[in-house]
């Protein structure tokens, strides 16, 4: 993701109307190809119309294809989806191959995905099939058989050593060091 995408509207991929659960319905309901009959910038689109458009229409009978010639205007594809969204693709100087690739994208999309930053490339409504964590989820099974009140479990987890214990520890350390010193001197 580059910096320019930061302020784009963000979203997740979505399937409108449970499409594909029962049967798949192509979400592109109609497409309008607008082009000029003699301007050079429409040449690729005109080539596409001459050579490939009939096949496209045959393969996708669920999509209505309209052609709209208009003089000296930019070539444009307008896609209309079942969810009511429209998408413009400016085809200025496109080759016929580019046009067919764009049409293929429009055909397989579920809506206008322009200006949307996908937060993730996948989405699920049920992130966990285990359910939420609870304080009892990973509890030790041995605790099920314990009788309460239990002396062992009632002890504090950590008791700080008392001053006397600390002193004794220091004294023992000193003795140990002395012993080592004496041993070294003897050698």
């Amino acid at each position, binding site marked *: 993701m580059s910096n320019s995408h930061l302020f784009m509207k963000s979203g997740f991929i979505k399937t409108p109307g449970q499409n594909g659960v029962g049967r798949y*319905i192509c979400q592109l309901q109609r497409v309008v190809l607008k082009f000029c009959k003699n301007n050079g910038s429409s040449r690729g689109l005109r080539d596409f119309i001459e050579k490939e458009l009939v096949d496209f229409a045959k393969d996708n009978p*669920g*999509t*209505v294809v309209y052609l709209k010639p208009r003089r000296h205007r930019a070539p444009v594809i307008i896609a209309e989806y079942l*969810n009511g969204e429209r998408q413009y693709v400016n085809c200025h100087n496109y080759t016929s191959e580019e046009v067919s690739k764009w049409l293929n994208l429009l055909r397989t999309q579920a809506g206008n995905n322009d200006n949307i930053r996908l937060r993730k490339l996948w989405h699920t409504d049920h992130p966990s099939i285990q359910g939420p964590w609870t304080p009892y989820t990973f509890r030790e099974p041995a605790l099920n058989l314990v009788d309460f009140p239990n002396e062992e479990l009632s002890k504090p987890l950590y008791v700080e050593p008392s001053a006397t214990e600390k002193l004794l520890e220091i004294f023992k350390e000193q003795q140990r060091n002395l012993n080592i010193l004496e041993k070294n001197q003897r050698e």
Partner: protein
Amino acid sequence: MYRQGFSTLITQCLKISIPAIQQTERRYIKRWVAPTLRELQRRRDKIGPPKPEPRSSYLEWNYDAEIFAFSKRLGEVFKEDVLRQALTHRSYSLKQEEQDGIQTDDNSALIEKGYNLITSYLKEEFAKKYPDVLVGVLYDHLITTEMLAHVATHIGLKDIILCADFPVEATTLANTFASIVAALEISSGKERAEKFINDILVVQLNGKDVYDLWKLNDAFGYLKTMLKDKDIEPRLCNQSGASTILANYQVGLYSNKQLLGIGFGETINIAKHTAALDAIQRIYNKRSPLS
């Protein structure tokens, strides 16, 4: 300035007096443009955003092609005259008759037929798998106008409906869905129509939680009436953080030392309620595996 200097220079040189030359200023910045645009924008703002136009009013609109694409989109075979009738509402045919004196068949009969088919199919199909209470709940959820309108828009009915009102109302959309179902039954038979209902309408239940649709206020009471012969015993299985804001309790419902259901809650009563919900779900699931 320059001109004036020039003319004084000439008078000085030629020693004659020339009357001052009348000047017209030439401005290359057109000062009327910005105010005009501003005024136009102000008027546009005053009028407000343009009203949505029906798609059929566009130049690129071919109703025959739209109807052909509609049936192909769904992968169904319709008789064309029946489909056209199914899309024509009473309001539209009345308007036609008033304007041009042409009588067209409307879909009032088809709507009723479609609703009957949908109702009988849904109730029959749900009754095979779910208890009576749930049949009612699921049916009520699917038969609402919003749900039918939602489904109708997502098969592309919104633009091809023939009716007097625009934008198309939700009830009109829902009615059209029903009439389409009836048209399919006439065209391709009852089996196809039922498959259509299943694929388009019933599928909307996918991913829904039963308890989002079924509001059970007294789940424990319901469970008790369900299991009249059994003794249900709620037990507190776990608790922690009592008298804090993170208090949580886990209650299990037992019957004859068998766990029926288990649930959590921030109070014991809520935990008991969720445990009862869980128990009901487990019992029904065992009785009829969810498909």
